[in-house]
């Protein structure tokens, strides 16, 4: 087979370094280029995804603004950062949504929770989970309407001690064959409601709108 370089040159250690370095540099350049080209479309797709999820937990009629533009970074009781999306209508915060995380049977269950200013649930949707297909995945709205049952509920309805699955003396059904998954989800929703209750003032204060909005933080 013909080679492009003379055999004597190919023997040296410098040749190896040069070829290896050359290919790596080429690969790096390609990746930089591809990243630059795809960064914007990918960010757009992500925003579309997030908007679609947000639209499921905050009905579009409740807000006039771009939810992705009106966010607030807070930290929850455990010191974890929480990004709060806020819907605004008629100069007031009309709905909020944020992610809650529960630890399920096989890892984290990330749920997007939408709340009205009075702290009642507008909607909840599971964003990602690793629960057992066919058992634990009934928490997905596409598989089962279990998760729709939370709409309209709040921290006082049912009372705090009844915010659990039936097996734990709570209000909510578990699935046959899967208790850990719904238990984790219910607990994470309750955590979310408590987080909202604790930070309500901050969350409902209009973003950078001056003293008018700050004077009337809640309806």
């Amino acid at each position, binding site marked *: 087979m013909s080679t492009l*370089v003379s055999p004597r040159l190919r023997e040296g250690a410098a040749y190896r370094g040069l070829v290896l370095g050359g290919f790596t540099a080429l690969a790096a350049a390609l990746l930089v280029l591809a990243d630059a080209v*795809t960064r914007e479309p*990918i960010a757009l797709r992500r925003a579309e995804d997030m908007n679609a999820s947000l639209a499921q937990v905050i009905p579009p009629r409740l807000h006039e603004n771009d939810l992705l533009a009106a966010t607030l970074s807070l930290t929850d009781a455990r010191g974890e950062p929480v990004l709060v999306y806020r819907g605004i209508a008629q100069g007031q915060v009309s709905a909020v949504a944020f992610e809650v995380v529960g630890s399920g049977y096989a890892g984290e269950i990330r749920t997007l929770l939408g709340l009205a200013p009075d702290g009642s649930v507008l909607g909840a949707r599971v964003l990602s989970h690793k629960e057992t*297909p066919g058992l634990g995945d009934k928490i997905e709205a596409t598989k089962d309407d279990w998760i729709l049952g939370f709409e309209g509920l709040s921290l006082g309805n049912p009372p705090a001690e009844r915010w659990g699955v039936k097996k734990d003396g709570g209000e909510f059904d578990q699935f046959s064959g899967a208790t850990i998954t719904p238990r984790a989800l219910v607990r994470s929703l309750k955590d979310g409601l408590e987080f909202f209750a604790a930070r309500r003032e901050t969350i409902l204060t209009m973003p950078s709108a001056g003293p008018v909005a700050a004077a009337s933080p809640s309806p």
Partner: protein
Amino acid sequence: MSNQTKPTEETPWGSIVRDGLWTNNVTLSQALALCPTLAVTGTATNGLGMGLATTAVLLVSNILVSLIRGVVIPEIRIPIYIVLIATLVTLVDLGLNAYVHELHKVLGLFIALIVVNCAVLGRAESFASKQNVAASAVDGLAMGLGFTAVLVVLGGVREVIGSGTLFAGASLLLGEGMAFLETTLIPDYRGFLLAILPPGGFIALGFILAGKRLIDARIASAKQRGIATKRAIA
């Protein structure tokens, strides 16, 4: 494994294709790439998507490896192939994420697995580094399609047994025009969880491997009988 080492005068196209699709099939004969094989084949559609993505990477990596075979020396070939394959897979990942986002949501986790798909490095090492570009391209394509076929069959079997559907979600992968592929074979099926879980993958793969052995044995015995009858006639 037969014809890879000797550089042939004339490229044996037929045997390259046959090797990839059947005789030396990535999964069924080489027993390579079992991790993605078992991980993604919960449905036929996922199998198809993963198979096609792998085929694309195999094809391009084979072509590139064949192109650079004059420059690369044996001592440093493995790191170069790995850098090459990892770069390709990252490009595919970024491209899918940006332009076929729905599919990426389904396959996203597994695209990165193609890097460690030993079949890709295996073909670079045992075929493309020794053959010309055209032969390497055909080999990559044939190996990839053979792999895809196994993934689709395995995914189909597990999907039918596990959830009673076939090609669910195909419109996400192939566009709305292919929505007719999505069929529910068993209505009101409660599902058979084992088939979808990893053990079901192993069991189904076992049956498929056994099936291939059986067919090979049939073919071999039929050939022998054929030779015997020819001899008898002569």
